[in-house]
């Protein structure tokens, strides 16, 4: 720098020090970037306050549109209109479009949220009374009058039936499903592509058709009685492609470098799978299986065709008709008998609790372990879990290999 000033013949550029101006107005605090200023807040909130008032006026005073649904519809329309109107007063057409779109998108998401909340809340509101009775969990419906109150009878037979059938299905699908996934990813070859194509195609199988298949083959052709075993088989036929495909996608995300690192010091391929591939994918596999179970436990249609509905406790899956929670709910809801419908809601609440518990477990398992376990594995877990999330969400679909 000093050289340039000495050699240059022209006037050297000079630095001006800022001079403090005592008469300058006090500095204005800059607003946070992206946060709405007071005007914007007023437009956003004010529009909806105005909309509530307009909706009240229209539905309660001007037009004969009684009822909450009409109020909400008018509220939505007038809210969007007010937002547009208030924005036009200050902003341009572009801003109007932005605000209106924001209002519509948020309302759409709110509708979906309200629908979900109403579903869960409705089931628990109509079913919670049954849950207060201990005998609801411990007794079955043998010899209980359909009109009886909650003091007698319960759904123990349905709960145990659901668990037994699910256990049978899991014993079949877990080794076969994950084994197939290992075959498709680790063994490979032309034959594995055939298997993958067929498995992906079969995820499109509607669950009722899986039930009908087992009904036609196991019960009508082979002469088994309708039983918990048949129901478990039906659930297994339904779940097998789902779990196999989900596990396949999970295993495919395991980085090849890990496999190579294991194979290079001459570990056998089985050891590589058992000690490297499967442990790396463990959280993903667990999530896939648990969410598959959550679907299996709630699936009514295969059970409807294959298990029969006993109203007493059956623990032997080969013995004969065995009830399960979804089937119990279905029959109760169709019976038209108010007491039985209330019981069905109680059973639905139990089923929801089961599904919620499974769901929360799946979330916890899928979360990468909090403690620093092994530095190598941690960065790998995340993509695996993300992939499972993606797969499980579109479980009954086919995803072609990329």
């Amino acid at each position, binding site marked *: 720098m000093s050289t340039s000033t000495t050699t240059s013949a022209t006037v050297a550029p000079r630095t001006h020090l800022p001079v403090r101006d005592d008469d300058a107005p006090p500095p204005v605090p800059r607003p946070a970037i992206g946060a709405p200023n007071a005007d914007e807040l007023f437009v956003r909130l004010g529009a909806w306050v105005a909309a509530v008032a307009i909706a009240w006026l229209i539905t309660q005073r001007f037009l004969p549109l009684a009822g909450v649904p009409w109020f909400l519809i008018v509220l939505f329309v007038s809210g969007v209109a007010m937002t547009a109107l208030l924005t036009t007063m200050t902003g341009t057409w572009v801003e109007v479009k932005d605000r209106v779109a924001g209002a519509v998108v948020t309302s759409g998401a709110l*509708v979906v949220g309200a629908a979900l909340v109403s579903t869960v809340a409705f089931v628990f509101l109509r079913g919670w009374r049954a849950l207060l009775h201990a005998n609801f969990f411990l007794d079955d419906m043998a010899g209980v009058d359909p009109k009886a109150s909650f003091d007698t009878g319960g759904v123990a037979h349905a709960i145990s039936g659901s668990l037994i059938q699910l256990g049978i299905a899991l014993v079949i699908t877990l080794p076969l499903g994950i084994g197939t996934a290992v075959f498709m990813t680790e063994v490979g070859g032309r034959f594995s592509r055939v298997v993958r194509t067929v498995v992906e195609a079969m995820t499109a199988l509607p669950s009722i058709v899986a039930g009908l298949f087992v009904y036609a083959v196991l019960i009508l052709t082979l002469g088994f009685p309708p039983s918990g075993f048949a129901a478990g088989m039906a659930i297994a036929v339904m779940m097998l492609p789902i779990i196999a495909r989900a596990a396949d996608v999970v295993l495919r995300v395991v980085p090849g470098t890990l496999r190579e690192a294991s194979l290079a010091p001459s570990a056998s391929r089985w050891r590589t799978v058992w000690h490297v591939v499967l442990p790396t994918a463990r959280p993903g596999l667990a999530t896939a299986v648990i969410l598959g179970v959550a679907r299996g436990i709630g699936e009514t249609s295969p059970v409807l065709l294959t298990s029969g509905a006993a109203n007493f406790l059956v623990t032997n899956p080969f013995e004969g008709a065995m009830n399960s929670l979804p089937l119990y709910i279905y029959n109760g809801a169709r019976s038209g008998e108010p007491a039985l419908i209330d019981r069905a809601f109680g059973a639905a609440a139990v*089923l929801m609790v089961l599904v919620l518990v499974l769901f929360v477990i799946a979330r916890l398992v899928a979360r990468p372990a909090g403690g620093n376990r092994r530095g190598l594995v941690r960065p790998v877990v995340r993509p695996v879990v993300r992939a499972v999330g993606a797969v499980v969400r579109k479980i009954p679909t086919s995803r072609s290999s990329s």
Partner: protein
Amino acid sequence: MTSLPLSDPGAPEAEPRRISRRPSGGDAVFVNVFRVIGASVLVITGGVGVFLAVQTVPTLRHYGIDFLTTARWEPEIDLLGIAGVVVGTISIAVLAMVFAFPLALLTALFITEYAPARVKPFLVSLVDLMAAVPSIVYGLWGFFLMMPHVAELSYWLQRNFGWVPFFEIRDTDPNSPVWDTTRYIASSFCASVPVAMMVLPMACAVMRQVFSQTPPGEREAALALGATRWGVITSVVLPFGRGGIIGGTMLGLGRALGETIAVALIISPAFEIKWNVLEVGAISVSSLIAIQFSEASPSQLSALLAAGFVLFVLTLVVNTCAAMIVNRSRSGADADA
């Protein structure tokens, strides 16, 4: 110290090792065991498809090609046909998508574009939870909570838009002093509401995932040019996610076609090709199976299996198209692997 290896002149000539990709020893056992597992799963799952396909043969032989074109299902006089059933299935599924598509799109946009970053994972879990709620629970919700409201909506639609052919309800007078509720409930319209709830989370999850993969560079470029949030959505997010939107919708449609229990709970069966979606009475393939299987004779059972096969093929075609669209589009280019 380092010692150099001494070359032994008497040693035999070193030969290049033979390299073989054929597994040997334990690896061979491993490969073959898992090949057997894969083959058995192939037999089980493929067997279902083949079995269903084979079952359609006696049905078609017995009822002829009329099986596909007859609308009535009357086992008493041995007249079975699935035209009405298939039309009913498709109309319920399409109606469900009419509800589910805009809501799924809006929810996906809200989660990716509008929700604060802190609540985003929570919202994603909520959508997943919605997918995990058993269909029978949605059936209860649709039957006991929603059906009266939906019937009211049907009445309103009929009174104000009765001139639209779909909204016509036969044998009713919208202006009669007493509202005949029984003509408005148990319709395809009522059944499609819980089905929409079931397929919505799936469509939403696919769309959300695709939207979240929008390249940040393009998004920031739009923002830098002064685009509003909506401007970013229309110029970057939606064009990028078009494949995901179409694919997710079709996946939802595929699931809606096969939905059983909620439909069986709500509708009252009516075997005809019916375009009046608000009118009482409807049928779908899956609910037909659920209702009819117990009193079916062997030939009727094979007819039911044939109907199931038709449903399976329908679902398969829709799902395959969806997967192709999702994979062909730019969206999801680096989804995994």
